[in-house]
């Protein structure tokens, strides 16, 4: 009986020691929808939740839409309004996916690894598949993951007046950085 209890205790403990899921609540997502007509639609959210499972390569992000901070308060108001992100109805945006070529990354060795990420981005109540290149940098115990890609606002049913008028880029650039 004692041996069984000891075995179970060791099993549970080993689960914690070798836990591969790393998380942060301070990942950053940058959003740049500036155009030649308007330099204001640009924002950053610095309180994004992210997780990375170094064993399976699973990646996930969750961002509060109201957490995107614009320099211009009027622009922030428009961004959260019904013609754009409608943050009252759709308060969060999320991504779930995986590193496709995980074998390329050695999480125990310092270095910079170029990877491919694929998954689903859910925003404005619409879920769409996305694929992007990403860079994983391992330095000591820290893992830095970053990616830059474009999304089509129309894919997420975002077609407000400012988008149609060309004041907001139809394909804004998304910058993601997470330090685990």
């Amino acid at each position, binding site marked *: 009986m004692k041996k069984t209890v000891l075995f179970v205790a060791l099993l549970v403990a080993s689960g914690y020691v070798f836990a591969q899921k790393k998380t942060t*609540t*301070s990942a950053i997502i940058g959003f740049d929808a500036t155009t030649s007509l308007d330099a204001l639609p640009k924002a950053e959210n*610095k309180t994004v*939740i992210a997780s990375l499972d170094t064993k399976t390569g699973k990646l996930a992000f*969750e961002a509060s839409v109201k957490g995107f901070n614009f320099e211009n*308060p009027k622009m922030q108001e428009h961004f959260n309004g019904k013609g754009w992100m409608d943050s009252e109805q759709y308060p969060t945006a999320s991504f779930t996916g995986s590193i496709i070529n995980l074998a390329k990354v050695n999480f125990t060795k310092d270095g910079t690894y170029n990877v491919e990420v694929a998954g689903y981005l859910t925003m404005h109540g619409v879920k769409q598949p996305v694929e992007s290149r990403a860079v994983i940098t391992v330095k000591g115990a820290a893992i830095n993951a970053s990616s830059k890609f474009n999304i089509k606002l129309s894919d997420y049913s975002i077609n407000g007046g400012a988008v149609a008028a060309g004041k907001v880029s139809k394909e804004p650039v998304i910058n993601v950085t997470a330090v685990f």
Partner: protein
Amino acid sequence: MTALNKIPVVKKWLFTLLIILLVGAAIVWYLFTLKHDDTATVKAQFTVEAVSFLKEFENDMNLANKKYADKMIAVNGTIAEIEMADTTANIKMSDTTNGAYIIFAFQQQHLPDAKTLKVGDKVSIKGVCSNGAFSSILETNYVTFNRCAINK
């Protein structure tokens, strides 16, 4: 007959148009150069204790969001964690019974103040409450704050 009546009609229209254009340009300039106020100079609409504030979100997320989202709030509590990077210094207060947390992202000009804080410090932080939500990644509730400053 006044002097204004002597001005030809076309000139009067041009003058009116010029005034409209100037007012329009002033409004556009004002809207385009508008910035958020410095949080340190804005009065808090609510002053709350971190753990009881989190309990309000736990009890009724929708109600708490209606009450607090987009409002300037001062939160008193103990620092549970600091997540620091080159361009950020996010401070966290948490409910140790269930892992729920509040995270404060500091306004750029107040970042140096945030970097002086330590885990365990009792502090009052003022900022704009973005909203509360449940994280399916962390399986807990969280509330995010933007444009924060230490409430002195």
